[in-house]
């Protein structure tokens, strides 16, 4: 029988350990290199293009039944926006809250919660998928974004819809924001939700109004909405990547 500690075996073992170490530190160095991350980003473009190519244009996210509802819909990220303005609005039951919709539109508006509730509504029981890996199922009622867009009449050069939120994300006061393209904006399941599970949208879930974009991950679905703006590109807005988490390195395309 061969010796368990023969020089060859020792060499192999050392090779394995050294190889593993080199691999790990190489991957960590590569993760910090802009050139490498540029290459890795090819994956995002490929995923987006291929997923759009194999999916019908108006494909609908799966809808569930009341029996599938999560007993309590998990709140993630901000649970209560830490600002004087928001606190004042919340104490008053959001009667003073307004949603401004402007940018590349013919007819900018400011909407109250009652005005939104008076418009056509859609109710959907859908699965919320967090980028972290968990899912929860909730019943959302809200105004289809397409209704609001019909009201403001987007100009032909509008390509993206920006969503600005009330919740500060850091000590410097940067607030949450997100963006979607016109295809998602006009999708029938894209709604501005004011109710969750037949009750007014709770504060931990984004009161008084949050976005639902059912074919993308949770970080797209901005909570505590205050302002919607139509733009032709978002390179000049905040970090330029189209959203708070996108500026932190997450993909703009959150369909995967």
């Amino acid at each position: 029988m061969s010796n368990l500690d023969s020089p060859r075996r020792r060499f192999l073992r050392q090779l394995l350990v050294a190889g593993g170490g080199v691999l790990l530190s190489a991957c960590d160095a590569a993760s910090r290199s802009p050139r490498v991350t540029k290459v890795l980003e090819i994956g995002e473009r490929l995923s987006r293009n291929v997923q759009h190519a194999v999916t019908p244009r108006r494909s609908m996210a799966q809808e569930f039944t009341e029996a599938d509802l999560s007993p309590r819909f998990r709140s993630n990220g901000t649970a209560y926006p830490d600002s004087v303005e928001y606190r004042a609005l919340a104490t008053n039951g959001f009667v003073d809250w307004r949603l401004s919709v402007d940018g590349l539109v013919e007819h900018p508006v400011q909407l109250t919660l009652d005005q939104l509730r008076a418009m056509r509504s859609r109710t959907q029981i859908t699965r919320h998928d967090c980028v972290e890996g968990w899912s929860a199922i909730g019943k959302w009622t809200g105004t289809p974004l397409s209704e609001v867009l019909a009201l403001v009449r987007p100009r032909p050069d509008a390509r993206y819809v920006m969503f600005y939120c009330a919740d500060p994300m850091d000590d410097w006061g940067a607030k949450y924001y997100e963006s979607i393209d016109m295809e998602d904006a006009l999708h029938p399941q894209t709604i501005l939700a004011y109710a969750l599970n037949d009750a007014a949208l709770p504060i931990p879930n984004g009161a008084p109004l949050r976005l639902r974009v059912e074919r993308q991950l949770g970080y797209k679905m901005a909570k505590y909405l205050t302002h919607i703006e139509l733009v032709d590109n978002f390179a000049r807005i905040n970090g330029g990547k189209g959203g708070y988490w996108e500026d932190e390195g997450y993909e703009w395309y959150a369909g995967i």
Partner: protein
Amino acid sequence: MIQRRHALTVRVTHWINAIALILLLMSGLQIFNAHPSLYWGQSSYTGAGPIFELADGFPAWLTIPGSQWLAMGRRWHFFFAWVLVINGLAYLVYSIASRHVARDLVPTGSDWRSIGRSIVDHLHLRHPQGAAAARYNILQKLSYIAVIFVLLPLMALTGWSMSPWLDSAWPGWIDIFGGRQSARTLHFVVAWLLVLFLFVHVFEVIATGVWNNLRSMITGRYRIEHEQP
């Protein structure tokens, strides 16, 4: 006697596959660590609780990147997922067209008859000698077929079913796995089955002549020892 064993396409796709799988595993563990619990069903919050939990997640030395960095882990994972898929398709097209699958992987009648002896031989670490060593034995064929035609396609399918956009392509298709959270659990389980395969595979490579095997997968040349009379 030196013989040509692995075709160039098989050798190239083998090593690309090996690198992609290891990077996918390690970036996958990084993604798992963002929420180190597994569930069964459509959602994580059904009232039933997780079926598996790893409070602290996997250690940093097993993840890419080494620190907790979900956004970067996802970039690695989805890039190498594409490498794996494209490389795997290239391998399949070549292997079916060149009859590599039919000739070398599909078990023959005598393979099936040898299965009992092959199991005993493997357990005793007795390996085929001479020209027989250059062909795949029945256990080898079955494990390669399981990896190529069952485990890797399952990995891709359970991976795709976690994408909310692909889920909408044909609403309800992910119910074949029992829902998105079941699919995530299966993705995790199959990943570890692939790791199990990797360990057995590397063990057998070492046990049956590491340099000869490595050379045959790099240069294609394999040395056949003459059997003792």
